[in-house]
């Protein structure tokens, strides 16, 4: 495993936005992280990036092992060398993710200068090369532009180029297409998939779009209220969703040829982390609640390569 997160629990004061998160990703593999907003997907990304202290949070329990190194034990200085170097982040909104007063080329340079020790000239040629590979038209010219002079899709390509500039082994893409037009979304996803396949990167793709997951990921972790509720290979998870929440998410994907009125939503709302329900966190919205669900949190059960946290599947029985 390139990265494995084991039994991660984080805390912001008394709140615990993530509890018992387990997942892993290998080189050349795409792990999908899916769930509604507020389910802890971005928090997971921030934990892996070691950026919780910036936001006032901390890791309370568990390990994050990257390439054999437990990241929860290293100091900020060593972490900083990893960030943008071996682990890179692509953020949600390309409109606000770039420094508006710095030329985009320089923003990409910064990463390779920091992490690969290139001088300014080498960094520039690497940047232009990267921009070209990101299919940014006339990169020589685009290098000197400011972010506001580029379209959203191009800006996201800049953000991706910036993430790649430090030559990372692991890429975390936090909803990389949410803020973009539908037509551009597919191109960006395609670009990311190619990177993984060609360069052997590990990619954690955070999204709330089950459709994207189905098309691109190798494995998927379904998150709800700060917990991973189901985790497994993408094909089996879609063929045979075990957790009622996964089932509900899949039924929310609109499909061509569906009879009008058959597209379902999930009733209710994600509870806030201040007042989580007792027992299984999903039980108030679940369509197959057992008595047990209201009393205890179901533990994660793993069985031939896939895990689920639901009493319906206690001990692997249906």
């Amino acid at each position, binding site marked *: 495993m390139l990265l494995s997160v084991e039994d991660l629990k984080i805390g912001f004061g008394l709140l615990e936005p993530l509890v018992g998160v387990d997942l892993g990703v290998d080189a050349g593999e795409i792990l999908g992280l899916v769930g509604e907003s507020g389910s802890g997907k971005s928090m997971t990304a921030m934990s892996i990036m070691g950026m919780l202290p910036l936001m006032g949070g901390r890791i309370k329990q568990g390990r994050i092992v990257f390439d054999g190194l437990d990241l929860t034990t290293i100091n900020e200085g060593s972490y900083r060398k990893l960030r943008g170097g071996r682990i890179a982040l692509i953020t949600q909104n390309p409109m606000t*993710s770039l420094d508006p007063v710095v030329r985009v080329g320089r923003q990409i340079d910064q990463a390779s200068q920091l992490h690969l020790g290139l001088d300014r000239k080498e960094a520039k040629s690497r940047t232009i090369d990267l921009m070209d590979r990101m299919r940014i038209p006339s990169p020589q010219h685009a290098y000197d532009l400011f972010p506001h002079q580029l379209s959203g899709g191009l800006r996201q390509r800049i953000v991706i180029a910036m993430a790649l500039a430090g030559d990372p082994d692991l890429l975390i893409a936090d909803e990389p297409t949410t803020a973009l037009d539908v037509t551009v979304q597919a191109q960006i996803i395609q670009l990311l998939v190619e990177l993984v396949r060609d360069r052997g990167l590990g990619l954690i793709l955070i999204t709330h779009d089950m459709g994207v997951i189905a098309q691109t990921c190798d494995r998927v972790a379904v998150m709800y209220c700060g917990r991973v509720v189901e985790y497994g290979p993408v094909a089996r998870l879609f063929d045979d969703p075990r957790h009622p929440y996964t089932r509900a998410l899949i039924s929310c994907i609109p499909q061509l040829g569906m009879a009008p009125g058959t597209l379902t939503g999930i009733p209710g709302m994600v509870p806030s982390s201040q007042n989580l329900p007792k027992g299984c966190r999903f039980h108030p919205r679940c369509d197959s609640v057992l008595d047990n669900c209201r009393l205890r949190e179901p533990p994660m059960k793993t069985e031939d390569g896939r895990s689920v946290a639901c009493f319906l599947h206690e001990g692997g029985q249906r």
Partner: protein
Amino acid sequence: MLGYTIRRLLALVPVFFVVSGVVFLVVHLVPGDPVDHLIRTGSSPDQRAEIIARYGLDRSLIEQYISWLGRVISGDLGTAIVMRRPVATLIWDNLGYSLALGGWALAFSALAGVAAGAIAASFRERWIDHGLMGVSLLGSTVPTFWLGLLMIMLFAVQLGWVPVSGARHWTSLILPVLTVGLGGMALVARVTRIAMIETAREDFVMLLHAKGVPRWTIQIRHVLRHALIPVVTILSLRIGLIIGGSVTVEYVFARPGLGSLLIRALSQRDYPLVQGCLLFLAMAVMLGTLLGDLLQAAMDPRQRDEATR
């Protein structure tokens, strides 16, 4: 950029006419007759009439305004009635003192304010933040003249480090600069701090951290650079304060300067001098605002594009 500057300068022309009209009229609202100051020694009515005619005070306001404006545009601000010297010369002589005090005070408040604000923002909600902000709040809440008097008492009288007053030696500038500068520093520090805290919340700063940029590089090269944009605006709006607003400090330290000149002219009802000073100040403020906008455009590519479009 050049085209934009020229357009902005042209836009000031109508403002100039309005301001000059008001400046001209305001002076005539001041009660008292300047002629009285000239003939205090009991001159004859003939002499009085001659003086009135010499300064054109017998003509209608409109006529006086037009001839005054005509002369102003050709660069002649007239002659001070009481001080009997060309207004332009008087302004020029005093401007040097004002610029020295204002310029150094500006430099001090900008540097100290930005430094204090940046440090406070970087250690937000810690004791160093509260301490710095408390001290700078203090700086903006005490009356300037009072601060000046206390400083004279401490540094000039008790310790004897600097001269009490006057403007003969550069050391006499230290206390006035500190007095004016401490007041301005508070504002700059507060604006810098707030702007930095707000910038630090932006997504791109998050991404800079994710890129592995060292924390202090982020704070100084990126966050502070953004925070300087509103600071420049604030400072450029205070250009009038720098040139004419130090009148209290000039008074306390017995320094010459434009503010003092204007106050003296007012008390002597010296029309041409009052008009000249007011007009000069107004123009300086207008140009200062323009300069601020240009600087802002130079610092922020988004505004540059908007301005030159």
